[in-house]
């Protein structure tokens, strides 16, 4: 490797074998030679994985056998100058990964940056640190999105019974509220779809050629995932009576609390009457819904259903 780095000429496999300790072998012995070739191929693959671009070619038309050299321009990390606060940010970013594979990639990436002269303070913090975890599908999906290759995977929605095979042109991967999604063109539905990575069952397989599609013109990936999650308008005002010292969870939702004889009278701002009614019902006799009437009716309905469902359950309980 070092021998390749320090030469500007192409070296043939035989020349490399003659130079590099560990590559000695008897080229006239077919089995020995084959073993060398396997080793040589494996080492080449390893170099490419490290980020070393191996060029193949010859120095002159008289060389019959191809030689190898490292493309010096492509090999090197471009100059990078980071201010101390920028270096601190990179150092912190590199240790956020909890996923083993990407944690290793982050630290070997950081090692290269440090070799380029970056000074990192291992003690530095930035106040709030995100814990970065990803699902197993993250790697294959980002790779496919970068190469613009289509993918297939099995996908199971929780309400469904069976995992279905989906075919997707992945535009990119999105982290929204701590969960990962892939956004792209669903070939079967012929429409833009997003899929939650945690629902993907088994492996993601890339299919077909590279550059097989072009992502949607103004593909703002986040907007496909986040569009339904606007703020809830809490325009309703509920009045509930809460036993003293109980239902702390409801109390902290109150916009007003007035102590009373039979309990504390809370005013709660709400958006969805059913949601609030279910919560009030779950507090049992600690909370009484006084109004508006639709809330009161809904709470009564929820309570009746709770009784009915859990009465039926009794005989069915198995140890």
């Amino acid at each position, binding site marked *: 490797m070092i021998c390749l780095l320090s030469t500007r000429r192409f070296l043939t496999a035989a020349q490399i074998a003659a130079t590099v300790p560990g590559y000695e072998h008897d080229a006239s012995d077919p089995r020995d030679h084959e073993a060398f070739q396997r080793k040589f191929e494996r080492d080449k693959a390893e170099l490419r994985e490290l*980020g070393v671009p191996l060029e193949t070619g010859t120095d002159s038309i008289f060389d019959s056998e191809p030689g190898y050299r490292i493309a010096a321009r492509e090999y090197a990390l471009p100059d990078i100058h980071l201010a101390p606060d920028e270096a601190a940010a990179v150092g912190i970013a590199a240790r956020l990964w909890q996923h083993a594979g*990407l944690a290793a990639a982050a630290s070997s990436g950081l090692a290269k940056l440090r070799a380029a002269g970056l000074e990192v303070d291992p003690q530095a913090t930035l106040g709030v640190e995100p814990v970065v975890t990803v699902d197993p599908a993250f790697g294959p999906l980002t790779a496919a999105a970068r190469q613009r290759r289509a993918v297939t995977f099995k996908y199971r929605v929780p309400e469904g019974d069976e995992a279905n095979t989906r075919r997707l042109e992945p535009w990119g991967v999105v982290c*929204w*509220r701590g969960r990962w999604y892939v956004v792209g063109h669903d070939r079967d539905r012929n429409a833009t779809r997003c899929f939650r990575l945690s629902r993907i069952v088994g492996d993601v397989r890339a299919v077909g050629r590279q550059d097989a599609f072009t992502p949607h013109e103004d593909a703002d990936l986040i907007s496909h995932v986040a569009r339904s999650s606007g703020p809830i308008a809490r325009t309703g005002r509920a009045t509930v009576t809460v036993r003293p010292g109980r239902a702390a969870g409801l109390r*902290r939702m109150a916009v007003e609390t007035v102590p009373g004889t039979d309990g504390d009278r809370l005013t709660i701002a709400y958006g969805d009457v059913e949601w609030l009614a279910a919560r009030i019902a779950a507090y049992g006799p600690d909370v009484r819904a006084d109004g508006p009437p639709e809330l009161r009716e809904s709470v009564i309905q929820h*309570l009746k259903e709770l009784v009915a469902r*859990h009465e039926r359950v009794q005989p069915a309980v198995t140890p």
Partner: protein
Amino acid sequence: MTPQQRGAAPRASADRLGRLLNLVPYLLARPGIRVAEAAADLGVTDKQLREDLELLWVCGLPGYGPGDLIDMAFDGDRVTISHDAGIDKPLRLNPDEALALVVALRMLAETPGIGTRDAIERALAKIESAAGDLADAPVAVRLPANQEKLAAVRAAVDSGHALRLTYYTAARDETTERVVDPMRMLMVSGFAYLEAWCRRAEGTRMFRIDRIDAFTELAEPSAPPVGAVPHDVSDGVFRPGPELPLVTLRVGRGGRWITEYYPVEEVRREPAEWLVTMRVTDLGWAQRFLAGLGPDVTVVAPPELVERIRSQATTALDQYAAPQPAAPEAGR
């Protein structure tokens, strides 16, 4: 030979090669560095670093003269590269390295409550430019949160003082006052947390920022005891242990989402429903939570929880048996 063993040797040699290739530019950038300091910085032992240096020393191309050999000068325990044989720069980032760094920086830049967003964005731009095409990572990140509250708590944590919290504990449905010694702030699965030594519980606790209803900065400094160990949150914040009670639910289609949001032990398909088993910290919490999920969730075990839900709902209904005291219905 097992597959692992077959894979291990080449991996180790690739790791070493990667290290060697970084070592020359690293030393070039830091002439006269102490071997011990470099070793500590690079996360290897002194002995390992000296072996790497010896190997580098003999590297080069025989027959091409001394100019093609890496040369270095030792001065006591200090080392300086005097000839780099063309290895003056580290390798460029490979796709995984570029992805890991760029995505983590984007995550940092998006994390609410971070003070130095500007530095993160500058760093991100430079890393992206160094990574070239590879930096065009098809990954977007958005971590919404209550910015003002997070920033306020962070400023209080930065002050280095102990804090008095008014904190809502969902498991017990109670709001309590406690004094804590802040340790760090985290963002896990979309929620922001303060991790601190809780003087009341005498243990390390994770406090969800949205459940801190109020806080005051105390005059005394934050002083978590030496034994206060941060949680391992790589598998999420709540990891139910086998000592916690098991609860079994019958879940309809509309309630199936809970298995994606809460850790569950088992999901079994029944003809028309699912039978879900989960561990809960507290049966009281389970009652409030599960009874509040609506008609798609029925508790089937343990029997005391089933009975508690049924009897409490029955008692609650009695409250509505009498005509409503207030006036609103009279007008209808």
